[in-house]
């Protein structure tokens, strides 16, 4: 690692005013530290968000579940509130990486990073969640822009994510056997605004599969989606899977997600 300065503020305002052009926020460090170690990234200063109590925690009010940016994957996986409001989200969090990664990694860090194979983006887009920052609120669909790119400005801090509680939802992923990242993952939700289907891992960025949404709107069953194909052009291809393979996985995972929906 190149050398850097370190600061551990105790409030959001303090963190935002501390961050300069070549500085980075440090959340769970499960992506940022490996990248710094390999010298794929560099920072003048790390601003550790670990001391900011207001960024942590889970709450439910009325029809909305709220998760603070610094809430760890393990806390989302084990939360009784998440299990009763959106069990699919607890399931998703419990399958991110491995136990040690879940003990450090956070929802804010995961979405700010926007890895094309990350799990949370599928849940945010699938549920029509809202990302709250120190400056504004952004709908999940406007937040995730492209490969590792989000709507966040350099000095903008994710503070929490709010999820409208769906009638039911399910998530299924085909994990990369080495990293457990999603080779393809599909999040399906039946919401007051209709059915939503979000796909991660298959392309450069999370996207909605609207043909499947239409089919599930009239018939919410695995059979309704298992035959629906996704165009392979534009999907990712690498040593792990071809674009065609990923296109097929979307149908298989969508059917499993519908079956798992509760």
């Amino acid at each position, binding site marked *: 690692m190149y*050398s850097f300065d370190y600061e551990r503020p105790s409030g959001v305002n303090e963190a935002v005013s501390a961050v300069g052009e070549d500085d980075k926020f440090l959340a769970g460090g499960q992506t940022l530290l490996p990248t710094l170690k390999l010298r794929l990234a560099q920072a003048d200063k790390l601003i550790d968000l670990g001391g900011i109590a207001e960024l942590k925690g889970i709450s439910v009010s009325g029809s909305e579940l709220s998760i603070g940016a610094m809430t760890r994957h393990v806390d989302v996986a084990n939360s009784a509130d998440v299990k009763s409001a959106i069990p699919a989200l607890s399931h998703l969090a419990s399958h991110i990486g491995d136990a040690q990664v879940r003990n450090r990694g956070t929802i804010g860090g995961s979405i700010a990073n926007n890895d094309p194979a990350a799990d949370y983006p599928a849940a945010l887009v699938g549920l029509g969640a809202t990302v709250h920052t120190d400056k504004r609120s952004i709908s999940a669909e406007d937040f995730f822009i492209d490969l590792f790119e989000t709507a966040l400005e350099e000095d903008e801090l994710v503070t929490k994510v709010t999820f409208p509680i769906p009638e039911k939802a399910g998530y299924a992923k085909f994990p990369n056997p080495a990293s457990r990242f999603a080779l393809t993952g599909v999040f399906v939700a039946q919401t007051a605004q209709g059915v939503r289907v979000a796909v991660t891992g298959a392309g450069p960025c999370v996207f909605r599969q609207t043909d499947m949404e239409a089919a599930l709107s009239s018939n919410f069953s695995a059979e309704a989606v298992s035959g629906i194909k996704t165009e392979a052009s534009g999907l990712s291809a690498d040593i792990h899977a071809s674009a065609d393979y990923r296109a097929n996985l979307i149908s298989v995972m969508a059917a499993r997600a519908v079956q798992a929906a509760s």
Partner: protein
Amino acid sequence: MTTVSMTVNGKQVSADVAPNTLLVQFIRENLRLTGTHVGCDTSQCGACTVHVDGDSVKSCTMLAVQADGADVTTIEGLAQNGELHPMQAAFKENHGLQCGFCTPGMIMSAVDLVKRNPNPSEETIRTELEGNICRCTGYHNIVKSVKAASENMGG
């Protein structure tokens, strides 16, 4: 330099470190506790697993400054009064290691997993150890060791 203080295996320690010092470097180089291993550069192998405030974490993927004020346990902290921890004893008894490189991390993860799942099934053991890689054993005897230890640990 930043001053960090933490409790490691029950002892209060304190040192001035550069902010880019990893927790594993601090443990191995400052404290000379070399039971915690480094097996990769990519946060994938789990050989460096220690407990921070009771949770298993990869000490190669945490800064020493992030552990300021924390309670850390390493493999050296498991044995009590010269008696192996039941998990260590079970690995010995069940041939749960060959070269031993992965073993400290495996044992730290296994202790945490049994704490969270007092009576784990074989499947639970295998999925909960996903963050620990072993190049030698084929895992079979590791799983057997964890199962045996969970029974001895009163699960």
